[in-house]
């Protein structure tokens, strides 16, 4: 029976070996244990011994040639034995080895390769979620880990606190002082700051291409528009009942408040629409801060209702009223009209049936809400009159794709058409 001569691991760390010299030539008679060749390993020159007997029929690796451990480099066989299969196996396997061990070796090789790939990929992944503070450059606030946590728990913005530690570090006692003294509108003005509040999504090659191509086509923010026509019957009903309940308190909600609440809830379900385009990545927010467009004498301002998804309609209503009031008096602070994650613009009160709004970058979407009107619609083969409202969503195509926007609008419509669904 033929004996395969493999390049053997002659040192613990050897991966390949070089034939320095064949001590036996083709045709020589070989006894078990004979030294066949001198092999240069990574450490020394070693002897390769025969592990079988017969005639050295074929030498597959010339002197000076290198082969991986496990590779077939010669064949010992009986005189006249057919070794053509073995030899051809050696031909295409030189440097790779053959047989069982080689499969194992090949597998290991693959594993190593994929590991290398991972290792290469890793730094990029690490790069993607760049720390917000670093990005904002001068905006970095020095604070102890404890102070950060306390401030986040209390909804106090670290920026608003003067640090008494070394280099102006905000420490526990500073946060405690701020809590005692009170920070104006503190709980309502937290910017999305903590890392739990958002997820940064690195840009795929496709996403980068979409961004580039669409900007070329449509301008810096590549808009597209989606319109829905919403049956508002149940919303009208709901508003009546809610207002009846609120009457004692002298409060009232508007259709716009209902739209805001529904939008916020739908956004929570679709974080891909509650997002910012940040040039090298997309930031998806876990909190919903709605910017509400308010017309003022010489323009437009968008005060922000923070955490709108977690607030009741009455609360939203009161806040919008209050913010809009101060907006008209131009008394809003910067933090009150910045930090929105998504915008809503309503021109219904002007009788506008439907329109498109322009996105407020870096936000990725804005809703244009038209007037609530009774309109004829066909239902089950009959024409009936229903209260309807048209809503058009402008999407930044770099962030939101058509289907994503459509699914968001589906959720929004679902809530407006059946406000009870909000309770489920």
């Amino acid at each position, binding site marked *: 029976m033929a004996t395969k001569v493999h390049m053997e691991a002659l040192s613990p760390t050897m991966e390949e070996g070089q034939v320095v010299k064949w001590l036996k030539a083709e045709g020589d008679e070989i006894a078990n244990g004979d030294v066949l060749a001198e092999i240069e390993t990574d450490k020394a020159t070693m002897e390769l011994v025969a592990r079988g007997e017969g005639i050295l029929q074929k030498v597959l690796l010339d002197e000076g040639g290198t082969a991986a451990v496990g590779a077939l480099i010669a064949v010992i066989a009986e005189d006249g034995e057919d070794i053509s299969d073995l030899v051809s196996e050696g031909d295409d396997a030189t440097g790779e080895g053959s047989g069982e061990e080689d499969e194992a070796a090949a597998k290991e090789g693959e594993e190593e390769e994929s590991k290398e790939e991972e290792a290469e990929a890793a730094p990029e992944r690490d790069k993607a979620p760049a720390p917000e503070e670093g990005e904002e450059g001068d905006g970095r606030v020095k604070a*102890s*880990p*404890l102070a950060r*946590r306390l401030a986040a728990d209390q909804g106090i913005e670290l920026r608003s606190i003067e640090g008494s530690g070394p280099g102006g570090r905000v*420490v526990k006692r500073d946060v405690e002082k701020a809590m005692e003294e009170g920070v104006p509108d503190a709980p309502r003005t937290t910017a999305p700051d903590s890392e739990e509040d958002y997820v940064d999504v690195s840009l795929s090659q496709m996403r980068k291409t979409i961004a580039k191509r669409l900007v070329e086509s449509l301008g810096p923010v590549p808009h597209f528009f989606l319109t829905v026509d919403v049956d508002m019957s149940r919303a009208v009903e709901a508003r009546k009942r809610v207002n009846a309940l609120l009457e004692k308190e002298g409060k009232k909600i508007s259709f716009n408040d209902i739209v805001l609440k529904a939008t916020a809830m739908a956004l929570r379900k679709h974080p891909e629409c509650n997002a910012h385009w940040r040039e090298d990545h997309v930031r998806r927010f876990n909190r919903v801060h709605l910017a509400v467009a308010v017309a003022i004498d010489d323009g437009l301002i968008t005060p922000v209702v923070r955490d709108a998804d977690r607030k009741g309609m009455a609360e939203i209503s009161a806040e919008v009223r209050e913010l809009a009031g101060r907006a008209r008096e131009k008394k809003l602070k910067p933090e009150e009209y910045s930090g929105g994650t998504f915008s809503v613009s309503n021109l219904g009160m002007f009788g506008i049936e439907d329109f498109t709004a322009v996105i407020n970058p870096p936000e990725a979407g804005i809703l244009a809400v038209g007037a609530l009107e009774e309109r004829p619609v066909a239902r089950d083969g009959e024409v009936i009159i229903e209260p309807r409202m048209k809503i058009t969503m402008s999407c930044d195509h770099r962030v939101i794709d058509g289907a994503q926007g459509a699914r968001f609008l589906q959720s929004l419509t679902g809530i407006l058409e059946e406000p009870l669904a909000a309770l489920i």
Partner: protein
Amino acid sequence: MATITYREALNQALSEEMRRDESVFLMGEEVAEYDGAYKVSKGLLDEFGDRRVVDTPISELGFAGLGVGAAMVGLRPVIEFMTFNFAFLALDQILNSAAKMYYMSGGQIPVPMVFRGPTGAALQLSSQHSHACDTYYAHAPGLKLVRPATPADAKGLLKASIRDADPVIFMEGEMLYNLKGEVPDPDDGDFVIPLGVADLKHEGGDVSIITHGSTVHLALQAAKKLEKDGIHADVLDLRSLRPLDVDAILESVKKTNRAVYLEEGWPYVGIGAQIVATIQEEAFDHLDAPVLRVCQADVPMPYAKNLEQLAKPSVDRVIEACNRVLYRS
């Protein structure tokens, strides 16, 4: 309760364990006829004879290895080093034999034994006799490391160490041997303190001073002084460094939000480095200030009295570190 010295407490622990367990014996330089270089083994030769209390040649490597061999077949040797400064000669046997035997034999051969002796600086003994050696042993899995600071801890922990199934490095303090303290009376039953339980030696709440071994007493003095200033410090004595009572460390730090680690050894890759790493890994959001360390100056111990004082950790340096983490200047 009786008030006895640290040395007497160790002596009680040894004699009680030798009476309890025939396989326990004490071996080391000058432990028998001389009663021990620090008189820890006083009277043991008389009671147990030279079979169980054994003077050795000055061959640290040899008798440390001999102890390991005896433990491999089931005896429970207590090997005394006159000081751990001399045990560097025996490190091969401690690290390569004692620490790894159970593992590399696949769990066949445990090494139940104690290496004990003083560590750290006394007074003006200069570089080669003042080395705080904890970190070398804390580093190695397979070893346990115990550092009692009081007579009661010395007794209770030595008894637990002798009974432990693994090799235990038991480090005493040259300056502690004369320290007096209350220790439960032998007649009141077996007094054993389990390894891995830290002891809150002073309760405060404003700042955690965490430490082990001889410097516990420095920490207590600092805490007393801080008290006058209205600062209340936790003084947490770790007592054993492997196993390490991490829960106690975290509990104190979560309460005070700030910590100072105090040790006799050098700062670089010292015990404190590990403690700081553990705190920042597991109590990061509770920290109001960076954790600071007070250690020996990063130089060999000098002989000159004034320089030696400068090199050693001091009460003032502990107080200064506490003020820094409290943002008091």
